[in-house]
């Protein structure tokens, strides 16, 4: 009897403590979930690495960085730590720092990583500080391969629809050159033969060769991007599919159509749906990273394609303002703040950054059209996660150490501020910058990260 009473007491006490913890977390915990959307090579991993380094250096070592981040004043930050997110591998921050120390850029992300940044703030409100002396601001970030994000719009299509649009895409624009070999392969392929495993693999491998070649040459609209990564959980060797000519996709009884339609459905249900639910989960803040240099490095057509890709991406997310009721009762979040960010902005001279920002606003036109009639706050930002370049001898030049360890100066002709201004047949090659030995100082000198966080965390001071 006594034992039963003791157990009951223990349980009641445990419940009371749990309720107390939950209650206190309601009052002193503030969670911000960020969806960071970016195509591959847009600089997501480097942005995360810089962000952690900046915040840690600011709160633990007292370095005066992120001066415009008024939301987290250094005098109020007590400490900061990183916690893993359940179900995700921890973000390899230390590995990335080691890579930088060894003169290598962080490796491209090939699987999803998740982490929470917990910042403990001193409470300043006169009454609250006696009851709850500190509050926690929690940032949840998920890093994932950029190749995955281009696949999410495929969820809203059936196989025939996707195949026709993919076939049309690879027959136009800058990718047509890289797709010619694949199309020739399809033309001489015998679709009268039954689709055996070997034949399917032959076709899928040929299509993948095109995807790899096109990606290496700056093409951004590549589907399915997941086929590019060996680390993707979807077995594209066994359940692969490719776009087919309309002569086949228009015949629903064709054995090749049937098998690819089946594989496509499996790709949607077994890979894309869980991916969207786990990684692109509903949040209220979104950062869309855009590497304008992928376009500038190649041609005007590449820039137009980047614009089209971003427009498709915006279709994937739910935009609107979350109310207290929808957030706490319906447990449903909508994206209410969107930041369009052009990364690696230090790779152009300061004098050209105004043009770069204008170009960014034009590239995002299609994506922003999705916000019409909705109360969405959005801004455009130029960000450099690490200030790898120095000022040049004139306003249009930058200096940096290239991969051959030479200190060079690059002088830029005016960067186009609109797509129309981009001269046909010309390009702005990306400076091939090596990792500087003073990388930590250059991370702390990175620009725009504080402005970006302040916009996302602030309560509307920017507008």
């Amino acid at each position, binding site marked *: 009897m006594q034992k039963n009473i003791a157990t009951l007491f223990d349980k009641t006490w445990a419940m009371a403590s749990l309720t107390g913890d939950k209650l206190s977390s309601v009052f002193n915990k503030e969670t911000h979930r960020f969806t960071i959307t970016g195509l591959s090579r847009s600089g997501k991993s480097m942005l995360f690495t810089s962000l952690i380094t900046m915040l840690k250096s600011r709160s633990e070592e*007292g*370095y*005066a*960085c992120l*001066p*415009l981040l*008024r939301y987290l004043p250094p*005098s109020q930050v007590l400490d900061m730590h990183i916690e893993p997110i359940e179900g995700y591998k921890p973000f390899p921050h230390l590995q990335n720092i080691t890579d930088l120390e060894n003169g290598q850029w962080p490796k491209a992300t090939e699987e999803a990583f998740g982490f929470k940044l917990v910042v403990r703030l001193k409470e300043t409100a006169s009454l609250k500080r006696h009851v709850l002396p500190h509050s926690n601001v929690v940032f949840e970030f998920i890093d994932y391969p950029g190749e995955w994000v281009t696949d999410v719009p495929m969820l809203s299509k059936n196989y025939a629809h996707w195949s026709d649009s993919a076939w049309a895409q690879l027959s136009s624009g*800058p990718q047509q*050159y890289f797709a*010619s*070999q694949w199309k*020739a392969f399809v033309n001489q392929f015998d679709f009268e033969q039954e689709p055996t495993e070997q034949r399917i693999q032959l076709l899928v491998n040929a299509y993948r060769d095109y995807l790899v070649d096109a990606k290496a*040459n700056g093409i951004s609209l590549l589907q399915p991007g997941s086929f590019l990564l060996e680390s993707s959980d979807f077995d594209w060797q066994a359940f692969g599919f490719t776009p087919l000519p309309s002569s086949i996709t228009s015949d629903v009884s064709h054995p090749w159509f049937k098998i690819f339609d089946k594989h496509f459905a499996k790709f949607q249900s077994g890979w894309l749906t869980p991916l969207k639910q786990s990684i692109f989960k509903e949040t209220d803040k979104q950062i869309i990273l855009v590497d304008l240099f992928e376009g500038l*490095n*190649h*041609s005007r057509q590449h820039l137009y394609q980047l614009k089209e890709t971003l427009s498709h991406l915006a279709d994937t997310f739910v935009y609107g303002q979350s109310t207290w009721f929808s957030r706490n009762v319906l447990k449903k979040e909508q994206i209410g703040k969107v930041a369009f960010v052009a990364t690696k902005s230090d790779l152009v001279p*300061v004098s050209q950054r*105004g*043009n770069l*920002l*204008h170009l*960014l*606003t034009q590239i995002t036109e299609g994506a922003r059209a999705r916000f019409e009639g909705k109360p969405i706050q959005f*801004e*455009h*930002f*130029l960000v450099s996660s690490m*200030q790898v370049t*120095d000022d040049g001898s004139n306003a249009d030049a930058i*200096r*940096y*150490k*290239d991969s*051959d360890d030479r*200190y*060079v*100066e*690059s*002088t830029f*002709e005016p960067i186009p501020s609109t797509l129309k201004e981009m*001269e046909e*047949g*010309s*390009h*702005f*090659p*990306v*400076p*091939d910058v090596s990792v*500087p*030995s003073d990388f930590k*100082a*250059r991370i*702390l*000198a990175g*620009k*725009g990260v504080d402005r970006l966080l302040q*916009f996302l965390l602030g309560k509307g001071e*920017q507008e």
Partner: protein
Amino acid sequence: MSEKPYTFDESPEQTSQSTLRRDAIYGDVGEEDQHNAMTGYGKPNNDHERDAVTKPQYKTKVKTQTLDIAQPETKLPKQVVEDAWEVDSKKGGLSLGAATLGFGVVSLIGFFVFEAYTTLAANVSEHPIGTGVLGALLVGFVSCLSFLSFKEWRGYKQVNTAMEDASVIRDLLASNGTDPSAQQESSVGGEPLAGTEASPQKIDRVLSQHGKRFSRGSYAAHCFDRYKQQLQDDMTGPERLGLYEDTVLKPVQEKAHKVLNKESVTAGSLAFISPNNLIQTFAVVWISFRTIRRMARVYGLRPSTAGNWKLLKVLAQNIAAQGVFDLATDEVANQIGGSLSAKFMENSAEAIAAGALNARLGRALIKLLK
């Protein structure tokens, strides 16, 4: 270092450049690709199917030169250490006030000696050196006194100018530091756009002028240094203003309130332990002047010892109020009787009053200087 710190190693008309990410643009460049680059026609490796579509060739819009100088190292930003700033400045040699007093004392003694000397010798003309020395001392005294007076006057003027600057900064803060042209700029993004740079320059000028007035070693000057360290060239006008508010205006205000609280507690404590009203009045006067001096050290503006009449008026009112309060508490104590508890109560009441009056003085000072 040579006069020409770089050499051209690439032709500006080349269609692609080896120092740039060429492999990212064209993949591995083989002999055939080099031939293509020369002829201007694309012909992919052993790929006749691609003949139908010409490989894209681009003209570069970036010229690159190799420099024969080393890359400068970027310094880590300054560390914001704990606020180790002390209200009392470290004594650095003889102060001007002490020199004035010294000259005065020396002159006085000199005149006494001179007087004694003339009395004893009864012949001034026979001792020109003594007269000269005493004359020089007197000149020094008068000069220093004049300079001190000038400094006092300048300090007074400086406070008024700083108050005008402060009102300009307040206006800018109220309008979020933007003029109509700058507002357009911020609506498109965080980075300044070409052609609308007047606003940051104007704000910079106002803030620099305000910052220059802070006396050396003051807390405000310390904060202003921190502001300058964190300033970045791509910051817009409103961002500069926000940074100034965060790194200078707010910390100075907080520090002033902290110093004032401490001084008010000291005033109360002194009033509590003072054995009689005369000592208490002296203590209140002393602590009031100390409060003015310390607050001035925080704000970096010296309102001058005999400076701002507003402060003196508050000070006089405080002393008068303290006197009236003393009379009242004495009377209450008499009514209660001469017990120890009555004395304790009287002193406690006076201590609270002294603290409150000192806080009043401090608040007037904060209002004046912020």
